[in-house]
């Protein structure tokens, strides 16, 4: 890697747990669907303010852990939690947990604040106050690639994703890992057919055991629901089998050893390359789906602490994400030209012979550092903040282990 890239530094936002953020956001969290409209209305037009939440009235441990991981994400400086007043999920507990992490946090129930307009006005006043406070008080510190956690998933894949889009990310992930950063990729249901191939990449015996368990669970899950992670658009794009799609998807993992498997809302303990398992665990009642859509996967990667997420698409996509900026990459130059206003990076140039895959990886690393330094990605510029969360059961570690206080 070039020394220039390795030593490239930009100012970040220091959080109380020592992690560094690339954005300084106020996060609004609604605790039931009934509070969703008011929460988005509070966030509407507010700078550096994003919205997440959970639609269910009955709470779910998985969903609460996911929200708390986002609330204490390095890109988040302060939180406002908004409830209706009769749901299970408690906005006061969310605010308390966030405050315990050293961040300012407030909460209120709409039923106690008044109606829609009163609640929106109250919320906007709180957001303005929190934003002013974190802008004033958050320490700025230098960051380098070694301070970054970057997640990647692919969606809307075609024949170019495995040839150029994902290999370009793989080349970047090798650079990031060598620089001391953390790289995360997921979609164990898209590793089906690659059991031995994947286990051979394990960094040690413990990682190998974790990979074997995650793989076997994913295959049992796919057999049970008779749904393999491959869709009509993939077939029309030239992919024929799940095994073929898996190999293309796995290419984004680059070539470095895999340190282990993490679950949703859990952070990689050490630098290096990690796999995120988002498949539901077996439970007395089977519920939760894996990979219901692309946005869920991105939220999983952000919950693991990714300050930036990468999305590789062959057929094209127009999504973005809250909390962490999304960078959209395509291996299909025709898709890049057709959707240039949404696409950040054209890896298809590697197929045309204009650049090599390692060059694409280095270019991508340079783009990641620019976005980390504050340049908005295309989805950020367009205001895309698609968000998705669902009921699921995962035997994830305790909050203390999963999300550092």
């Amino acid at each position, binding site marked *: 890697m070039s020394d220039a890239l390795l030593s490239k530094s930009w100012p970040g936002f220091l959080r109380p747990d020592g992690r560094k953020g690339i954005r300084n956001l106020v996060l609004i969290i609604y605790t039931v669907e009934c509070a969703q409209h008011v929460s988005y209305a509070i966030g509407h037009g507010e700078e550096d303010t994003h919205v997440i939440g959970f639609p269910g009235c009955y709470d779910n441990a998985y969903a609460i852990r996911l929200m708390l991981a986002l609330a204490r994400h390095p890109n988040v400086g302060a939180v406002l939690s908004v409830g209706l007043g009769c749901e299970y999920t408690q906005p006061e507990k969310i605010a308390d947990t966030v405050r315990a992490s050293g961040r300012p946090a407030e909460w209120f129930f709409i039923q106690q604040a008044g109606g829609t307009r009163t609640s929106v006005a109250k919320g906007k006043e709180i957001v303005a106050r929190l934003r002013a406070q974190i802008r004033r008080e958050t320490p700025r510190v230098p960051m380098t690639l070694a301070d970054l956690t970057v997640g990647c998933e692919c969606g809307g894949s075609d024949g170019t994703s495995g040839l150029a889009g994902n290999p370009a990310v793989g080349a970047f992930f090798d650079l990031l890992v060598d620089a001391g950063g953390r790289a995360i990729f997921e979609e164990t249901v898209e590793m089906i057919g690659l059991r031995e191939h994947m286990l051979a990449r394990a960094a040690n015996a413990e990682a190998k055991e974790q990979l074997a368990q995650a793989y076997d669970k994913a295959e049992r899950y796919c057999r049970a629901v008779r749904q393999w992670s491959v869709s009509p658009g*993939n077939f029309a794009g030239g992919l024929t089998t799940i095994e*073929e799609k898996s190999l293309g998807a796995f290419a984004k993992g680059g070539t470095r050893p895999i340190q282990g498997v993490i679950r949703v809302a859990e952070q990689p303990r050490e630098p290096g390359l990690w796999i995120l398992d988002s498949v539901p665990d077996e439970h007395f009642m089977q519920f939760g789906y894996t990979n219901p859509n692309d946005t869920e996967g991105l939220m999983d990667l952000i919950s693991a602490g990714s300050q930036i997420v990468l999305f590789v698409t062959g057929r094209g996509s127009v999504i973005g994400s809250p909390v962490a900026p999304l960078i959209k990459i395509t291996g299909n130059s025709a898709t890049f030209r057709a959707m240039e206003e949404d696409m950040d990076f054209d890896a298809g140039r590697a*197929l045309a012979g204009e650049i090599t895959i390692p060059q694409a990886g280095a270019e991508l690393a340079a783009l990641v550092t620019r976005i980390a330094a504050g340049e908005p990605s295309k989805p950020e510029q367009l205001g895309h903040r698609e968000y998705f969360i669902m009921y699921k059961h995962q035997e994830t570690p305790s909050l203390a282990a999963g999300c550092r206080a």
Partner: protein
Amino acid sequence: MTPRCFQIQPSDNVATLIDDAAPGLVQVLGATRGEVAALDKIDRGHKIALRDIAPGEAIVKFGVRIGRATKPIARGTWVHLHNLASDLDDRSGTLDLHSGAPTDTASAYV
């Protein structure tokens, strides 16, 4: 311009089209260089057989088995849902060849 296809590993018996191809000559790039005569119209992103492949034989891409041939495949043939099946996904033989749409749930839409 002659349409191009890309072979990832030398052991691959299929290559991926980078351009849309009509029956006729296709340039092979990647692990090996050369030409293959396409027997079918093959769209960009889809696969072409680089060798004759017998029924039951593994289809290899990325140097790894991605499924098995369900009928004899001659060099130059379009390789897709009509002649390649997954070893795992039992629905893969039921999908519409061109759109990839499922056909085994047709009754659910009535």
